[in-house]
């Protein structure tokens, strides 16, 4: 394994770790969400009527395992291609 191949391998692993870390930070969702539920401030009258807090959908991209695995697969393919291209060719 030459230096370029080592850098390719290391970069691939780092990118994959970033992708999985991002997925973990965004809530370990199985599927990518386009909207998330956000609790809205409760009015006094609703409290008096015994109503629990209400939730609203807001547009928010939350990365899921589906997109994370797709990104990981793309990283593996690109790394494999580069790894092959950077192979040291022996002179005939």
């Amino acid at each position, binding site marked *: 394994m030459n230096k370029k191949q080592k850098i390719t391998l290391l970069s691939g692993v780092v990118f994959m770790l970033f992708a999985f870390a991002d997925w973990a930070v965004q809530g370990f*969702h*199985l*599927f*990518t*969400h*386009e*909207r*998330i*539920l956000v609790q809205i401030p409760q*009015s*006094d*009258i*609703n409290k*008096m*009527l*015994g*109503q*629990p807090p*209400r*939730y609203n*959908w807001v547009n928010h991209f939350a990365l899921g395992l589906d997109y994370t695995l797709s990104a990981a697969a793309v990283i593996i393919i690109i790394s494999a291609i580069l790894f092959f291209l950077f192979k040291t060719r022996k002179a005939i």
Partner: protein
Amino acid sequence: MLKIAVNIPCILFLFSITILSQGLESNASGTKTFSFYDKQQKNQMTFTSITALDEVDGTSNDVSGQISFDFNNIASTLKGKISITTSSLRTGIDKRDKDLMESKWLDAGKYPVISYIIDSVTAVKKISENKLELDVIGTFNLHGENKEIPVQATITYLKENSMTEKREPGDLIGVSANFKIALTDFGVDNMILGTRVANNISIGVNIVGTDKF
């Protein structure tokens, strides 16, 4: 001994009358009807499915319906129906919402409404002057199937005042209820049921109704 045995049914009868005839303290008399139709869609129904793989939280803000009861005797007079439109269910993922409406799930085209009809009240507990906790038996209709479901609900009554007017005109009633249903009881049986979507769904209903509609 025989005298005591004879009196037991009478004591039980009086006890049940006392428990079930608890009402909300109000100047109102006779039967009153409250509507939950809400143009601003402030009323909300929530549902949650939890499996080892995924948690799905969903809502519907298209809640409507009416309940009516006599203030002095809620237990034997409470009647009503609460509905939501099937197409109003949202889960935060457009593709999943679309799937939910299809025939393999809730079939919104064929069964456009999900409803709960109150059949009877089995217990009433007074929490405060304007708040009651009720154990209700009713018929839940989903996917064209009916099933009797017990529901524990809390009813809070507020007479019209300057504060209630900010929300809606009229006397207001707040209803909070939680219950569980099993999808297979309603003919919803899908390949991924139990893995990505739970069979047992927790439902929460938080709605406010007015007597001026």
